[in-house]
């Protein structure tokens, strides 16, 4: 058994497998399929200061080796989270991380402060890259000034681990990562969804209510790997990699490219047991290749 422990900022994860926000609900939806305590951590649904109804139906379309969604951050707000959801999930023996979205810098900071009052929440993943709502933070995530502004504000309001989630829909994701690092992020996670679109040719209508949506699944893996590779070379803080990871081999590719931990998103829909299977598969890989610890392969791509 190799050592799977890994660190993100001040946070020690028992293993490097996290769940991707928006694909794993509040974790409890999967408790009949897996033992949640086997997760390195679980990142819950995107949360905003105030409740949001999200976008109209239809919100989903299947695409070649992937899917588009335009859920649009439907959630009941951070207060509801604290009062009604947090009590039910806080004692899961894993690392609880809240994914935070917003429309204004002030909203982000205020919500972050409230999240800071939930003891068992060990980190915020700051979503500045949601492509599905006009004010979903994507505007912040596409300029270095925007990144600095919102990350600095949240950094002031929140003193536990701060992971900034980056969008691939930019000319240089490395610039965004550097800006997040400079503004005090403990880590960056990437990638959020690629902006895409799907059309029903017969009916001549878009398949999504918002016309465009976020692409995820195996189809985006090559782009995600490239982003992780570029960013991991540029920043000093740990990188959390995600995008199309379906199995342990995919996860290993992200570690080799430089990820310190990984997140599993869309794969949960195909096989709700993916996360724990990936934990097992990483172990098997490390053993088979005689590595003693996951840290021995991080960034070890031979180029």
């Amino acid at each position, binding site marked *: 058994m190799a050592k799977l422990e890994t660190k993100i900022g001040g946070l020690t994860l028992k293993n490097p497998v996290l769940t991707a926000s*928006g*694909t*794993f*609900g509040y974790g409890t*939806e*999967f408790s*009949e*399929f897996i033992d949640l305590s086997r997760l390195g951590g679980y990142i819950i*649904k995107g949360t905003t200061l105030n409740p949001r*109804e*999200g976008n*109209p*139906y*239809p*919100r*989903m*379309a*299947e*695409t*070649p*080796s*992937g*899917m588009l*969604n335009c*859920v649009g951050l*439907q959630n009941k707000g951070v207060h509801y989270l604290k009062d009604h959801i947090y009590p039910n999930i806080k004692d899961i023996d894993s690392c609880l991380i809240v994914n935070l979205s917003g429309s204004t810098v002030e909203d982000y900071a205020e919500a972050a402060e409230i999240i800071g009052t939930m003891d068992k929440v060990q980190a915020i993943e700051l979503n500045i890259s949601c492509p599905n709502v006009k004010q979903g933070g994507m505007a912040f995530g596409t300029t270095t000034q925007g990144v600095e502004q919102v990350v600095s504000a949240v950094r002031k309001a929140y003193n536990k681990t701060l992971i900034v989630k980056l969008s691939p829909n930019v000319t240089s994701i490395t610039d965004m990562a550097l800006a997040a690092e400079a503004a005090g992020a403990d880590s960056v996670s990437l990638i959020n969804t690629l902006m895409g679109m799907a059309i029903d040719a017969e009916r001549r209508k878009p398949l999504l209510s918002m016309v465009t949506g976020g692409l995820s*699944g*195996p189809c985006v893996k090559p782009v995600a790997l490239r982003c992780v590779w570029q960013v991991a070379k540029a920043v000093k803080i740990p990188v959390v990699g995600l995008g199309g990871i379906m199995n342990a081999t995919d996860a290993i590719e992200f570690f080799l490219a430089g990820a310190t931990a990984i997140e599993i998103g*869309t794969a*949960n*829909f*195909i*096989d*709700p*047991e993916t996360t724990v299977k990936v934990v097992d598969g990483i172990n098997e890989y490390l053993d088979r290749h005689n590595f003693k610890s996951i840290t021995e392969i991080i960034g070890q791509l031979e180029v």
Partner: protein
Amino acid sequence: MKKQLNLKVENLKKITEQHILLSLVAPNGDMPEIKAGQFVEVKVDNAPTVFLRRPISVHFVDYAKQRLDLLVALVGDGTRKMATLSVGDEVSVLLPLGNGFPMPTKAGAKCLLVGGGVGIAPLLYLGDRLKAAGHQVSFLLGARNAGGVMLEDEFKKFGSLYLTTEDGSVGEKGFVTNHSILEKEQFDEIFVCGPTPMMKAVAKYAYAKNIECYVSLENKMACGLGACLCCVTEDNKGHNRCVCSEGPVFNINELPWQN
């Protein structure tokens, strides 16, 4: 208890040109308890264009035989691939998902089960459950034409069967809402599954007559577990509700269908 099971194809029968009846068995005898109106998510293998699982209603369950029956309309790549399964093939299934139809609280309730197209799928098991619970079951099933009328003998096992076809070739002519039984009889509860316009028409009847009425909605789904919020429908309070985890069965009084 939700499970991911590898079920084995026991039988695959062509019911019409466009429909198959797929019988799956749990080889380890671990078929979970399933309520009528719940559904399963089927993984479709060997189909390059099919990425997500496909939600399919529970058509029938035979616990003694550990058998789950699915009635599947062949509409696209996923369902057409299901039709190429062979006896003995393994199929990964998540089940049981969603909430079933609630059983009537009144003893010996007169229940009308209305189905259109492949929407008849969940009604067979529902008829079975209702009859077993001592209720009176009538099925009112609609199809385009004689070719779309399926499984009459199966339904007759659990109650009276009324049919409509749009061309009048079988049963009464017209839509289910045109059937004379709706005027002749007074039902305590109505359960509906089928195309949305049909469900809305039946709901209108139920609203008017003040009859308890439940509909089973469809929607595009990704997870089937209430985790992704892809499958929402708007309720009568303007809130988005998950069809997979809060439905697929809703009381019409929760839906914005009143007018």
